[in-house]
Structures are given as structure tokens and as C-alpha cells.
């Protein structure tokens, strides 16, 4: 059996999944000041009367690290950065304890200027003096040659509790993002570590030993122990949980939109042939642009409980939520009140809903029905317009080869999957206003927790080979090897897939059912003078986000029992 747990702003959804389908679903109130208690309560409640030995995994999607970053409740961390020529590294300062040191590496991984050990040791002294316990080390082009980061790391020795090296965090080229990502990892490391050790220990004390996994924002999971070295990969996993909860019901041969309509916001994503689209660079959180792999999702401030106002004769919906719908005792009119008045959905106090819409109708100078219809339509239309813009942005993404540009087909989703609390109601409005087929995801209120539970382990490997310099490297994997000048693109692909396989298994993937995918494989002849002096080979491969092998029976059972 599998447990899926998704911490939301107001509720935490927990499901228990078995061969028979969805066995249990519960909701517990989220106590944002004590997420530990929330998670523990959820896990205890869902496993009541169940033999813990039968639970093969519990996958958690929490808001712990996200909240800490957004609220700025993170410890002081030290950053040591060597940049060399280019942008002024001062521009990427992360805080008070940010030091730039001499040292430079070029785009092919060749050393331009060595690091100055004396200076690094002085920096270490002053970090130590200031009580810094967590340090990030980043050098420009370290993903081509990590030597400087490694050397700085060695100089720091064991004087600090944890040192994060940039090249182990992400394989992509982007120095400012590598700095930000390394900084965030160092920043959330202690809170992440404490939290999950507390969870595991408490469960053990209660006799609830079960393997715990963490959901990542790319819609995949990783083992808890693997997450200790990548704690920032636990941020913003919420939207990914919902997207993964709809994957089983997406068409396998075309694109579709996923809309998770919540109380405050609607999260949107795109599935292509059943697989979610990833953000090409990485997730952004607050001011931080990172290299953390993530699904391409967009969140807008329109949901069932969005505040509805009339300004200058025009309806404004959201982006804020001031409480529940008036029908449930909330303070201001909401789309949910309009839905109740129109009879699209039923709930709460009809008189209160009428009162809510009455105020809007008066401000608009129209009748109740018309006011409710206009609120509901505008909410649905805003969601559709924003979804359209998101698809346009995806289609406008630049490509760098003649082949891709010439053959590139445009994404045109013709189906919409809706989930979240008010999903069935919104689906009716979306259906009427769009040309797409609109489907409600079965078990729409807990599909997010189901998604967390059924997500597979994902990861990515970036590989680089230079036959002129006779090196192949995947710094993120701590891999460097000498290669012969005859090394080919095929050799590089094989080596990449091998590294990916090992990484995926290490992070918790099922070795029997690995779905590896080469994202990019390019080989360039390097010509100096009029002679080919070598090949410059770049390969990226991933385990793409999807559901664990054998999910189909479970998904089908969920589908069978979806509409009571």
C-alpha cells in the first residue's frame, strides 16, 4: 500500500492506495505553525488499524521549505563565489556573508586563473567568526570543470556543518541561478533535516516504520535520505502533486491542459501525450530564480473563494481570498456564491449566497441571475484566457536548430482536465466557454494526494565530453573520466544513460521499470585552422515524470468508483 500526503494552505489531504484502488481518503487541518504535527496526524490517522509492514512507501508533499523561504525564516548562510570575467558577481549577492574570491574557468572547463587558497582560508575564518554553519561554494563554469569548487570545499574542510558545492546541485549552465540554488539548499538544509528526522523518529516510536519519500516540484519523488543533499528540491511541490494526480486520466496521444481550481488560486499545467511539460530552466520562488527542476506551471489568483468586487461598473475577481464563500459564513461575495445561486452547485446557506450576489447585482444595476452568471463566466473566462497565454508562451520558446524550427509543431491542447474542490462546478462553465472537451478528474478533491502517492522517482543527468581535451564529465554526479579521441556521441549517450540509471536507482526508482529518455544529444566538430581537432559532445537525459509502474489497475479502480 502507498500513502500520498499533500500539505495545502488550509487542508492536508492524505490517501491510502492499494491494489484495490483508493482505500481511504482523509483531510486534516493544516497547522502552518506546526507542520510536523499536521503531517504526523495525517499519517497516524490514515494508517489506523493498518499493519505498517504493508505500507511500501509514504510520499510527502510539504510546504515546509517553501514557507521558510517565502517568509525569509532561514538562517544566515555563507557563500563563496569565484566568477572570473563576465558579469560583476556582486550583482548576485545573496546576503551579508557573500564573498567573491579570485579564480576563473572558461566555457570549455580550462583554468584561466587559479584560486587563492590564502584568501579562501581568510573567508572561512570570518564565516566561522560570524557563527555561520552552512556554506555554499559556486564557481563560474563549474559544471564544465568543478576543480575550483572542490578545492575551495577541501580548504573549508570540516569546519562547517554542511558545505554545498554548486556543481553537485544542478548540471545546467547558469551561474546566477547556480548561486541562488546553492544558497537556497544551504538555507533550508537545517529545517528540512530536523523536520524529517523528527517525522521518521516519531513514527518509529509509534511503531509506524515506513519508507518516506519526498515529492519534488518536477512531479517526481526521491528517497528521504537522498533529499538531505538536495533539500531545496522539496520546494513548491504542491502544483506538481495535482498535475500528477491527473496524469492517469490524460489522453496518451495528444496535449491537454490541467487546471487545479482551489479556493484562492488556479494552478495550470500542460500534459503532452500524458507526460507533464517541464520548465526549461527551473523554478522561481520569490526573488530567487533557480535551477531546481520543475513542471511548467502557472498560478493565477482566481479560485472558488476569490473575493468578488465591483469597481466602476466592472466585476473584479481575486487575486485575494478574504475567507470562505458567504454561503459558508465568509465576509465577501465569491464565485462559489454565484455557483450556488445559479444552481450549478449546492451547499451552504442559500440565503447567504443570495445576499452575497444581491450586493453585486445592485452595484452592477442588474438582476440576481445576471450578476451571478457574469461572475461565474468571468471567473471561467479569466482561467481560460490565462491558460491560453501559457500555451502561447510555451509555443514561443526559442529553439536553436534549423530542424526544430522547421519541424516544430504548435501545442494545441483540445482537452481540459479539472481538479480541486470546486472542479465539477467550474467544469460546467469552462465547457460552455471553450471549444475543448472538459473532464473532471476522478476523486478531484484528493487527486493531488493520489498524485503524490503514485509519482515515480525522477532525475536528470547532464553530460559533457570534449575529445580534444580528452575528458568526459558529469559534475553533478561527481563523474569525470579520461576518454580517447575516438569517443563518439553514441558513447556519450551510453555513459549518460548509465549514470542516469544509477542515479535513479539511488534515489529510489524501481530498477525493473526505468523509463529513461535522452532529451538532447549534440556533437560538434571542433575545427581549428582547417583541421578537425575533436568533438564537443553534450547529452542530457532524464527519467521523465510519470506514474509508477503498475499504476493502471489502481487508476482504473479509482475511475470506476469515481461517480457515486
Amino acid at each position, binding site marked *: 500500500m502507498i500513502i500520498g500526503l499533500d500539505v495545502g494552505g488550509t487542508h492536508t489531504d492524505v490517501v491510502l492506495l492499494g491494489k484495490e484502488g483508493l482505500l481511504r481518503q482523509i483531510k486534516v487541518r493544516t497547522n502552518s505553525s506546526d507542520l510536523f504535527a499536521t503531517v504526523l496526524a495525517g499519517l497516524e490517522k490514515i494508517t489506523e488499524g493498518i499493519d505498517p509492514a504493508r505500507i511500501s512507501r509514504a510520499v510527502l508533499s510539504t510546504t515546509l521549505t517553501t514557507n521558510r523561504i517565502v517568509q525569509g525564516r532561514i538562517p544566515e548562510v555563507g557563500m563563496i563565489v569565484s*566568477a*572570473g*570575467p*563576465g*558579469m*560583476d558577481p556582486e*550583482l548576485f549577492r545573496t546576503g551579508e556573508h557573500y564573498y567573491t574570491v579570485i579564480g*576563473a574557468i*572558461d*566555457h*570549455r572547463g580550462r583554468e*584561466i586563473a587559479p584560486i587563492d587558497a590564502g584568501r579562501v582560508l581568510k573567508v572561512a575564518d570570518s564565516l566561522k567568526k560570524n557563527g555561520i554553519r552552512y556554506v555554499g561554494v559556486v564557481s*563560474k*563554469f563549474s559544471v564544465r570543470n568543478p576543480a575550483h569548487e572542490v578545492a575551495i570545499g577541501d580548504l573549508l574542510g570540516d569546519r562547517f556543518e554542511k558545505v554545498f558545492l554548486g556543481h553537485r546541485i544542478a548540471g*545546467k*549552465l*547558469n*551561474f*546566477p*541561478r547556480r548561486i541562488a540554488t546553492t544558497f537556497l539548499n544551504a538555507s533550508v538544509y537545517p529545517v528540512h533535516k530536523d523536520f524529517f528526522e523528527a517525522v521518521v523518529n516519531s513514527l518509529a516510536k509509534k511503531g509506524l516504520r515506513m519508507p518516506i519519500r519526498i515529492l519534488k516540484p518536477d512531479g517526481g519523488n526521491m528517497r528521504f535520505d537522498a533529499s538531505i543533499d538536495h533539500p531545496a528540491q522539496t520546494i513548491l511541490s504542491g502544483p506538481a502533486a495535482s498535475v500528477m494526480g491527473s496524469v492517469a486520466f490524460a489522453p496518451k496521444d495528444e496535449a491537454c491542459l490541467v487546471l487545479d481550481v482551489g479556493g484562492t488560486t488556479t494552478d495550470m499545467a500542460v500534459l503532452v501525450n500524458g507526460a507533464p511539460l517541464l520548465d526549461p*530552466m527551473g523554478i522561481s520562488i520569490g*526573488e530567487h*530564480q533557480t535551477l531546481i527542476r520543475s513542471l511548467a506551471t502557472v498560478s493565477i489568483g482566481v479560485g472558488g473563494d476569490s473575493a468578488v468586487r465591483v469597481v466602476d461598473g466592472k466585476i473584479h475577481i481575486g487575486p485575494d481570498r478574504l475567507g470562505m464563500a458567504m454561503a459558508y459564513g465568509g465576509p465577501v461575495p465569491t464565485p462559489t456564491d454565484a455557483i450556488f445561486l445559479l444552481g450549478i452547485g449546492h451547499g451552504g446557506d442559500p440565503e447567504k449566497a443570495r445576499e452575497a450576489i444581491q450586493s453585486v447585482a445592485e452595484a452592477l444595476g442588474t438582476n440576481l441571475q445576471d450578476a451571478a452568471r457574469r461572475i461565474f463566466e468571468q471567473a471561467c473566462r479569466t482561467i481560460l484566457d490565462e491558460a491560453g497565454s501559457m500555451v502561447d508562451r510555451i509555443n*514561443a*520558446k*526559442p*529553439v*536553436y*536548430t*534549423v*530542424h526544430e*524550427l*522547421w519541424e516544430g509543431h504548435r501545442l494545441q491542447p483540445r482537452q481540459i482536465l479539472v481538479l480541486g474542490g470546486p472542479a465539477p462546478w467550474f467544469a460546467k462553465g469552462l465547457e460552455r466557454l471553450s471549444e475543448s472537451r472538459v473532464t473532471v478528474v476522478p476523486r478531484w478533491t484528493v487527486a493531488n494526494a493520489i498524485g503524490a502517492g503514485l509519482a515515480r522517482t525522477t532525475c536528470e543527468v547532464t553530460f559533457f565530453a570534449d575529445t580534444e581535451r580528452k575528458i568526459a564529465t558529469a559534475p553533478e554526479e561527481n563523474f569525470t573520466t579520461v576518454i580517447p579521441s575516438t569517443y563518439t556521441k553514441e558513447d556519450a549517450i551510453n555513459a549518460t544513460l548509465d549514470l542516469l540509471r544509477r542515479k535513479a536507482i539511488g534515489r529510489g526508482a524501481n530498477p525493473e521499470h526505468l523509463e529513461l529518455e535522452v532529451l538532447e544529444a*549534440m556533437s*560538434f*566538430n*571542433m*575545427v581549428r*585552422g*582547417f*583541421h*578537425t581537432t575533436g568533438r*564537443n559532445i553534450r547529452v542530457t537525459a532524464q527519467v521523465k515524470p510519470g506514474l509508477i509502474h503498475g499504476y493502471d489497475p489502481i487508476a482504473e479502480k479509482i475511475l470506476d468508483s469515481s461517480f457515486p
Partner: protein
Amino acid sequence: MLRAKNRTGLVFFPAFDWAISPTHPEREERLLYTQDQVFEEGLLDIEGIIEYKPDLVTKKDVQRVHFCVPDLWAVMTESHFISAGGAKTIAMAVMDKQVERGFALVRPPGHHANRVVHGARGFCNVNIEAIMIEYIRKAYGVNRVAIVDTDCHHGDGTQDIYWHDPDTLFISIHQDGRTLYPGSGFLSELGGPNAVGSTINIPLPPNTSGEGILHAIREVVLPILKEFQPDIVVNSAGQDNHYSDPITNMNFSAQGYAELTTLLKPDIAVLEGGYAIEGALPYVNAGIILAMAGMDYSHLQEPDFDPVKIRQSAEVSRWVHKICDKVLENWHQRRHLADVCRGDYQLMNRDRDIYYDTDNIHEHQQETIRVCDSCGGALRIDSAARGMKHILAVHIPRNVCESCRKQGYLWYDSADTTRYDKVYLQDRCGDVITEKSQAN
């Protein structure tokens, strides 16, 4: 988050799957390290630097500028549709005011492509700047355009296309034609009889460094631009003046290119040549992007940069100053020089041999222009490529006068199709592109 001072558009199209031939300088690898540098510096994350996906140009966009022989499909590859399209995309973003300035970092280049195209010369098939400029003239009604070509090679193709156009100022700064391909671009090349002074060549001696090139920009280019009052300024941003370029002999640097861009403030920059793909391009392109965006580039420099090693000699400085003085003198006397050039002629002829180094084609051209005070003049080109096609091409300019229009149509209508493989008409005023041949 970092913000650009000027909202800057960028089309980055490295054509990673296109080459003239495997070891040719114009090959897949050319912008690889530039991409690495641009990505690693995080330039595309800067707020206000907006990357666009290139559109393709249409057949008509190309035919508005070129006479393609035997036809458009013979001279255009997919890659040319995209690189010209990248320039067009950036120009549209600028004209639509989505961005203040734009840089088309695209390949293949175009500034050696003439109006008549039998094949590739100087790595160029079609002139991507001219295609872009004529598109925005048509679509946005732009009239006066200045092109400043800072590629190390003379921009002879662009010069050819705008030779007779008084509304297009073409300034080329390059290594002296006596020492480098294509062997043209001398002081005396000032434009056709209807446009004397609107072509300006600044040939600089080998080993000119930043000091000399920036002197030419400050003392010659900027004052002339100020006087010409263009609606837009286009920079053909070749990067082969760099001290490490393998096929030229100049001593410019990444800092120099960034400063040149800051001084020139082009509305649109389009990449041209530049083949020091590791030692120069990554740093030069990063510098140009930062300069366009109005951001600090003072920390940018090549790993092997040594200002002492590339400093220009006193003799080079003297030569540069002399050339610049002469260019300004010609500019100030352009009306007088036009009178001298035109004499009492009503039609003037030019006879030329044009060699296509990339495709090894020998073309012979006889050009006839109607001398005119009110427009660019009707233009007739009789062009024969040895062992290949013989064509007649008639060009009627955008702001044509009635007499020149009549002359153009007379030339086209009376052309004997038995003498030519094809006869072309490019009526820019009436927006007519047509052709005739014996077969039809």
C-alpha cells in the same frame, strides 16, 4: 532580480545543424561557445532582455530586395529563411515598441550578398539586413535608415543594394581592401550618381585597435549620423575585428565592441562575421548584449586580453586620422562631388565583374541608372554568370518619380526574352514583383 536599463530584444539562432561545409568557418560550432557564455552569465534571465523565437521570412520579403537566379529556391536554404527571419523578428519587436532595441544573434550572415544573387559569396547568400530594412519600410513606413557595418570585411553586398538609394546611409568600417577580402570599400566609393555621399567607406589599416576604431566612430560616424537624421540605425555587427580572429588582422577587443555599441546606440544590431569562435565571440557577444541593454560590462574581458600587446602603433594612428579626415571632407563636399560625377548624363552605366568566392561563380554586370533629382532612379542590370544564367533585372525604387517609373517599365516591357534566361521587375513603388521568360 537584475533589470536592463533599456528593454532589449534578442533573437538567438545559432543554427546548430547547419554549415557551409564541415570545416568551413561558417559551421555548426560557430556560436556554440557564445551560447555557453550567454547561458552561464544568465543574460536571458535579466528582466528587460527578451528572447524571441525567429519567424521565417516570406518569398516576397526576399524578392523585395533580391533578384535570385535562377530562382529563390536555388539560393535560399532553410537556414537563410530563419536567419533573415530572425532579423525581421527583432525589427518588428523594435517597431512595435515591445523593446527599445534589438540584437539578432543569427547565422548565416548576409552583408556580402548583392542585389543580384547567382550563389554564395563571402559566406552570404541573401542580405539579411536589407531584407529586414525593406520589410519594415513596407510594413511600418520607415523612410530614412542608416546602416553602420562594423564587420572587418567591407559590406560590399549592402553597399551594392543601397548604392543608388539617397534615403539609406551606408557606412562601412573595415580593414583596408588592399589587404583583405572582398578587396573593395575604398574612400572613393561614395554611392551612385543619385546618392553621392550616402555610401561612406572607412578603410582602416591592419593592426588598428580600439583606439582607432572608436576614433572613427566618435569623430566620423556619429557626426554624420547626426546630420543624416535617420529614423533608425542598424548595426551590421560583425565581430572579426577582434585581435584573435583567424582570418583578419585587426586588434579590437570585447570591451571595445561593447563601447562601440554604447556610442552607436543602434536600434537594431545584426550579427555578421566573426570567426574567433572561442577566444572572441563569447565575450564580444556578451559585451554587445550588455551594452545594448545599458548594463555594466566593465568586468567583461577575454582570458588572454593584454592591452599592451594589441596597442596600435603611432603610424597606424596617423593613418587612421588621415582616413577619417578625408571621409569627413568627402561628406561635406558630397553635393559638389555629385555634380562632378553626374555631368550632363541622363543615363549612366557601370560595368563590373563580381566573383563569388564561396561558390566560385564569375558574374559580369552592366548596370544602367537613370540620373534623377527627385528619386533614387530607375535601375537596369544586365547580369551574366559565366557558364550559367544571363538575366535582365529592372528595379523601380520606393519613392520613384513618374519619369523613372515610366523608364523602368519601358525597360521591362521592351526586354527581349530571347536574349535572356529571365527578365525580372521589382517595382517597389507599385509593390509589384514579376518576371518573364521565353518559356512563358
